[in-house]
């Protein structure tokens, strides 16, 4: 019986020590891991949208709770003014969920750029939503509060040839971004002031 207890205690002590060490290390590396994930998954798209900004939007970011979902907003600084945010929304494409990052100018609600992050569209057809710069460029300069639709649905966006559903997915994500933006704009401006001050 005492032997059993000894073995039991040995394993418990080992496991507890190991758990403690791991918790400590996870605490230390947590922030960096989050940054790395943002950098390699969303980073390239954000860099593309925020071309010419003078800060690092990946570090300069806000977290705001939107209807129980945590939104990461990346802030871009242009000509000394922190007037741009970019954030990710999701649309339904042909092969599943598409992640779309939309960059918006806070002063005039204009879209400065749109980019697809993760998707599972058909390579060479729907995947052009990510790779074809002409498609994404159509959103540039329009107001984010507009209803976005592809031309076949009576809207203003030229769909990618053969990939109407993927194009709809991107439009849907941008429309969703508009709704989120409408909801969050006051909070965003408030939080940005807080951060600066």
């Amino acid at each position: 019986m005492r032997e059993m207890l000894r073995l039991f205690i040995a394993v418990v002590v080992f496991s507890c020590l190991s758990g403690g060490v791991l918790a400590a290390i996870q605490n230390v590396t947590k922030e960096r891991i989050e940054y790395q994930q943002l950098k390699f998954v969303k980073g390239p798209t954000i860099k593309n949208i925020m071309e010419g900004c003078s800060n690092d939007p990946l570090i300069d970011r806000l977290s705001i709770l939107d209807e129980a979902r945590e939104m990461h907003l990346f802030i871009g600084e242009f000509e000394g003014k922190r007037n741009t945010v970019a954030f990710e929304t999701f649309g339904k494409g042909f092969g599943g969920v598409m992640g779309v990052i939309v960059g918006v100018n806070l002063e005039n609600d204009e879209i400065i750029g749109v980019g697809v992050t993760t998707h599972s569209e058909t390579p060479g057809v729907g995947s052009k939503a990510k790779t074809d710069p002409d498609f994404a460029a159509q959103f540039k300069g329009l107001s984010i509060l507009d209803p976005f639709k592809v031309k076949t649905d009576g809207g203003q966006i030229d769909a990618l040839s053969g990939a109407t559903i993927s194009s709809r997915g991107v439009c849907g994500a941008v429309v969703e971004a508009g709704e989120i933006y409408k909801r969050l704009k006051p909070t965003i401006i408030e939080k940005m002031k807080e951060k600066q001050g």
Partner: protein
Amino acid sequence: MAKTAVQEFTKGLWAEIPPFRLVLGLCPILAVTKTVENGIGMGIATTFVLICSNILISLLRNVIPKKVRIACFIVVIATFVTVVELIMQAFAYPLFLKLGIFIPLIVVNCIVLGRAEAFAAKNGVVASLADGLGIGLGYTLSLTALAIVREVLGNGTFYDIPVFGPTFEPFSFMVQAPGAFVCLGLMLCIMNMLGKK
């Protein structure tokens, strides 16, 4: 202790080089050696775990009760593997994405548990450190050797640098799973021929 630390170190590099002489740790060696970068990354991760677990188990060899030693060894090894996983996510995220599931699987790598049971549990700290370093380095060398053959023939590149010029038609069989078996088999064959006296 009849042998010196130097001898413990060098035996891992030739006489007991893990995949070719002990024929252990074959799962990762077949799976991750598509490119030299992956091979080296995996080798370093395994070496780190091997050295740390060898040192700790050697230090604790008189504390760990014999009957639950395997459970304790696995706890120690799993802890270090998780540490490696976290560090890799924080500092080498692209490599982490490529190696994926094979990092957590170091826990069940026979080499690590094998060295803990066969060596570290019976020898002093210095000898265990030398043993871990030697075996780890030997494992890294084997992974790299196999990866060089496979990447150069299968992809025409070395560490992502083209070596044959644009006219080279890659022998893509080598980077597929059957190519890994054939390549490993031939290497074992060569090692056995060289080892014969």
